[in-house]
């Protein structure tokens, strides 16, 4: 049971950002996708969720089913949730409505209440702000709202793009704890993080994107001790 990206090349217009990227996430696990700024991490997630990026070759398979050419909204139904970089909330809707929209996909219907209770117990801060317009939340609150919204669709696989961005240390700790909980519920997570130390602590397996390809990969623990990783990404 896995989400497999095989030999994926993708880009925007004439610009190729990815050349033959192969990676995979299995349920019940966290895979980290690392790399410098602009390496193409977000692009990889976009290609998986079917947004913006043009895939020129390669495949994305969800538990064996080829979803490479599926429109974005059908992929949500197939079980992919993407918490995008930069939050992308519905700024003029309340937090509650944002969360409700998280369960727009048919697969989530009928489970909205449970899902809502669950995410609110994960992010109690949001409970206080349910009626507030999402656009006026503080930066960190917005990030929580975005993650919570992603969880509302009862995904099989969750793509998280820099979830710790802008969060207070205490919240980062909470989010990381939540990632642990989510995985335990049988969801596979592909985690993109700039905070490499954090990501490697959280993940079982990790990939490092460099020059449009996966340059390094391996169990997270091994990468933590890899010299290249330590120098380039851990600032040690």
């Amino acid at each position, binding site marked *: 049971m896995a989400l497999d990206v095989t030999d994926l090349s993708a880009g925007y217009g004439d610009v190729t950002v990815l050349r033959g990227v192969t990676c995979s996430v299995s349920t019940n696990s966290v895979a980290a996708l690392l790399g410098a700024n602009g390496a193409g991490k977000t692009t990889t997630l976009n290609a998986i*969720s*079917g*947004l*913006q990026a043009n895939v020129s070759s390669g495949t994305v398979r969800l538990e064996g089913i080829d979803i490479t050419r599926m*429109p*974005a*909204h*059908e992929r*949500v*139904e197939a079980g992919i*949730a*993407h918490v*995008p970089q930069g939050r*992308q*909330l*519905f*700024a*003029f*809707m309340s937090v509650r*409505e*944002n969360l*409700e*929209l*998280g369960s*727009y*996909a*048919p697969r989530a219907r009928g489970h909205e209440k449970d899902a809502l209770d669950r995410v609110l117990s994960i992010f109690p801060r949001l409970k206080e702000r349910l009626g507030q317009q999402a*656009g006026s939340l503080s930066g960190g609150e917005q990030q929580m709202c975005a993650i919570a*919204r*992603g969880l509302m*669709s009862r995904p099989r696989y969750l793509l998280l793009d820099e979830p710790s961005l802008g969060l207070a240390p205490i919240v980062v700790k909470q989010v990381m704890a939540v990632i642990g909980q989510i995985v335990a519920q049988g969801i596979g997570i592909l985690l993109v993080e700039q905070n490499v130390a954090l990501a490697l602590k959280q993940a079982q397996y990790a990939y490092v994107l460099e020059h449009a390809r996966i340059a390094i990969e391996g169990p997270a623990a091994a990468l933590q001790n890899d010299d290249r990783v330590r120098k380039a990404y851990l600032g040690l």
Partner: protein
Amino acid sequence: MLDILPQLLVSGLLIGGVYGLLSIGLTLIFGVLRIVNFAQGEFIMLAMFGAFWLNTLWGIDPYASILIVTPVLFGFGLLAERAVIKPILHAPHAMQIFATFGLSVVLQNVALTFWGPDYRSVQTTYSSQSLIVGNVAISVSSLYAFIVAFLMAGALIAFLQFSRDGKALRAMVQNRYAASLMGVNTDRLNRLAFGAGVACAAVAGCILTPMFYTFPTAGVDLIITAFVVVVLGGLGSVAGAMVGGLIIGVTQTLTGFYVSVELKDVIALVLFILILLIRPQGLFGRAGMEEVGTK
């Protein structure tokens, strides 16, 4: 001259209802697609021609013709969305205005070329009938327009506020990208919204056919007030369009009677500017909302 005040208020509210009816489609399309549809008046005009021909050729009552004209124009709206609106969804705001303006020129002249410049009208029993309540006369055709406007507005508001697709529509307005991440088929909703906006124009056109002449530039006169109403109420707000319509209707009627018929439009425009000074986003608009998606 005060004894006539109740009549003035009633007449003002009734015409306000007509303005609301004219504005609903416009505000819906703007609300969802962030496009000011300058061709909305022409869709109304096409509907009026539809009602006129159905009446002339087969004797169908204009109100009954809603059942035929609305689906046809809805379909036409879907086509227009595909051909004209979809390509410019992400274009700068100025481009969008002028694409729909081009569409309006084309539609007007299609009508002129096919049906000629003649003024046509439909005679119905209710065209100029009225109910008398006390010493106030209530125009039957305006009353129908008023009622239909409120039913339509109510239905739309309920749809947008409470239904799944309605919420998805509102979400899409604010962030298309995120909406598709939620599993929303944005292409379908765009089409749906434009089609629905055109369908509103169709209903309005049929309802208005017994009241006005039908001719190729009929839409132009009708839609200018609708623009004012829609901005006043808050672009994109259906409730705003109705309230804006009523405010403009009553102001025009009162100033038309007590001040000057000629200046009634100017006074309404001054009021319009004054309200915008206090609330730049319009009565029911949300501050900042007007910018969402327009860039």
